[in-house]
């Protein structure tokens, strides 16, 4: 298939940036979206031009590195996939495809389609953990039975890959879905109870500090999330945060 690509090019964080047009031909519908970009880059290199910089690594939808805003949607037109799992059969021959980076004040562009997501790192560091040291003397794993529905819920939340599609999609540039996933995972588990309140308070505080917006319950994040993280977790985060802020010791 033949396509017209409109790709965001930006030399570095301070550059203004803009869309460049590249025609591309002979793409297989079985190729992945990133393989299509590989072909484009090979072409650019052969023409003596600089290839398009984009983030990618595992190319099987789990590392959360790839991050493209395609035709106005995070990770493109398919549902429950990351950009690397998106296949060209989702596009029509002759189509014009717009490719942009995540757009958020808290995730500035580094180059072309690559953005800086270290704000997520700092949110995790503020409380996205259980304070247990490595030791060969923790209690036997089966000494702590956990009801299957609770364990399953925790797993659903823990599925988040930290790609940032929720932020890119949200009109408020909110990171609530990301934060909610982590806070919820631990809140369902007995191991997470000791630091439950402090975790919710600290992670939300850091989220605000990073400049992410607030949630206004649009639900676009849930739709675009490649892992289908449910909006329910945001409701849970709100309860966790409220409970932690108003409850006394």
């Amino acid at each position, binding site marked *: 298939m033949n396509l017209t690509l409109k790709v965001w090019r930006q030399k570095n964080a301070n550059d203004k940036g803009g869309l460049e047009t590249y025609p591309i031909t002979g793409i297989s519908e079985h190729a992945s979206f990133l393989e*299509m970009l590989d072909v484009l880059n090979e072409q650019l290199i052969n023409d003596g031009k600089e290839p398009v910089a984009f983030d990618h690594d595992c*190319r099987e939808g789990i590392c959360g590195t790839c991050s493209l805003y395609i035709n106005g949607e995070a990770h493109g037109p398919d549902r429950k996939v990351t950009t690397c799992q998106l296949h060209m059969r989702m596009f029509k021959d002759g189509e014009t495809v717009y490719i942009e980076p995540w757009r958020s004040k808290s995730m500035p562009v580094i180059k072309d389609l690559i953005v800086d997501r270290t704000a997520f790192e700092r949110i995790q560091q503020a409380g996205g953990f259980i304070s247990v*040291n490595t030791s060969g003397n923790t209690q036997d794993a089966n000494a702590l039975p956990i*009801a299957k529905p609770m364990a399953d819920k925790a797993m659903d939340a823990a599925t988040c890959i930290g790609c940032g599609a929720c932020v890119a999609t949200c009109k408020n540039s909110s990171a609530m879905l990301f934060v909610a996933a982590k806070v919820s995972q631990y809140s369902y588990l007995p191991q997470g109870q000791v630091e439950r309140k402090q975790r919710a308070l600290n992670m939300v505080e850091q989220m605000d500090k990073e400049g992410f917006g607030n949630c206004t319950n649009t639900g676009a994040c849930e739709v675009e999330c490649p892992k289908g993280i449910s909006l329910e977790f945001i409701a849970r985060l709100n309860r966790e945060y409220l409970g932690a802020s108003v409850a006394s010791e």
Partner: protein
Amino acid sequence: MSTLDSKIPEGPIKDKWTKHKNDINLVNPANKRHIDIIVVGTGLAGGAAAASLAEMGYKVKSFAYQDSPRRAHSIAAQGGINAAKNYQNDGDSIYRLFYDTVKGGDYRSREANVYRLAEVSGNIIDQCVAQGVPFAREYGGLLDNRSFGGVLVSRTFYAKGQTGQQLLLGAYSAMCRQIGKGKITMYNRHEMMDVVLVDGKARGIIARNMITGEIEKHSAHAVVIASGGYGNVFFLSTNAMGSNASAAWKIHKKGAYFANPCYTQIHPTCIPRSGDFQSKLTLMSESLRNDGRIWVPKNMDDVMAIREGKKSPTELTEDERDYYLERRYPAFGNLVPRDVASRAAKERCDAGYGVNATGEAVYLDFKAAINRYGKQKAHLLGVENPNDAKIIELGEAVIEEKYGNLFQMYEKIIDENPYKTPMMIYPAVHYTMGGIWCDYNLMTTIPGCYAAGEANFSDHGANRLGASALMQGLADGYFVLPYTIGDYLADDISTGAIPTDSPEFDAAAKEVTERLEKLINIKGTKSVDYFHKKLGEVMWNNVGMARNAKGLTEAMDEIKQIREDFWKDVRIPGGMNELNPELEKATRVADFLELGELFAKDALAREESCGGHFREESVELDGEQKGEAKRNDKDFAYVAAWEYKGDPRDAVMHKEELEFKDIELKQRSYK
């Protein structure tokens, strides 16, 4: 003459680790504050090591080429992690896990290391649960297990098909806690370019800031390499695009021996390749072999009809199918180890029975499992005389719960519903058992330089069993390295901070800069990928699933030629002092082009078939095992550790003879 001292402790195998821990030196908590440790890589081994060392009080500097430690490729492991908990009461024990691992590795691993691995396996599960890793559970609230290839017990713990992700996020959360406390300094988007030796000891690294291009000097009292395996030497593999061997190769060139590079795992259940544009291959977890049956058509007419789209595989009756693993290996059936399953698939496809257009695919069929689970579920729900449609509906729901994300992944890539039509699979390069040689303490032949996880060679011999990579990564990172590194660092308590303004650091930084300048100034005509693909083709054709002396000799010459062409004709656009993905790729491929040649040399020297290494000259000629791989314990029961001598083909082999005191060497039989 051998210069290798594996430092295996004395005493009975079951006491070695305990005794060793009691004998080695410790560093007191006040002194740990003055000791720096560099950890390269943030996967399960590196992440777990960094977190544990920081918790103990060391000052840790952690390096990742990704934008976050959470993205290391351990995250892609699907199926599970082994541990000798015997929760299923099916006869599992530390000894049995040890035995299975040594046998699965085709008797080419170091007994003492493997026993220790089995010994700490239970601790890993305890530790991960304490961290909040959401393992799968049964309705009673206790942990669930599944079985994996090559063993007869259920000892694999899992979190859906995302076990690696959950374990890595556990280690990552532990790292985050230490980063927040300032005990780990995290360097994301940094690539290690070289190791720095001062007075013969590893005292730091040269790293490149991948955003600014700045060449940075980082010092430490010890350096841990946990940078994963080198499967991407094949270009197409299940590794991440950025997975590379450069950290391991750089320490090799500075004195660390590289052991058994030819031991590569070709994983049997991957999605077949579809075209020239293919950039990587996707694994489908081995756990699928628990419930999937592997087959190809018995009759060539059916093969042709299927390839031409005139027939669907679902139309074939049981009689028309060849369940070749069940036929050849009745005892283990579809659960034979990975090397055996891969070769069997290749055998059928080479014979012409491959079921897709490329002729390189076999079926993995869930119909029987869907039926079985459907009936069980109907019984459980009290549905009397369920019709076929109901059984299939219930059965598919059970399969979805177990493997839903894998089925979804398959459907997105192939555009076929695997609940209705059997999956197509074919072997692909997945894991490298070989790696940097290390002693019992995980120290390489460079004092103060350690290798952990897939980057080292020690535990899996010539073939790794499923669900053992996660176990080894976490064992090394959480429970082995944090103890053994103290023994070395105990001598460094009054050394003080290592300065980076020394001649050694200056020289190393200069060398790195010059190499990058040289690369970028070639200004040739071909892209980095062009050379990488050529290398991959040679590796796959001559150094892949079946190897022979002629092919290997040719491969060594061809790789050398590609390397020379690369250094003459590669084109790298952009500059050095900016984010430049082509430059990053070029530095990695330059190293693969050297490693590939040593890889072929090692395969040539090992004139036996063992585990994932199959030499066509070494097969059983008759008897029950006719056609199976033939190992040669008399001449080859050793670890081949290669010393760098300036050119990969000039590398010198040092042998570590393997002694088997607790396990009798036998031919592996899965019949």
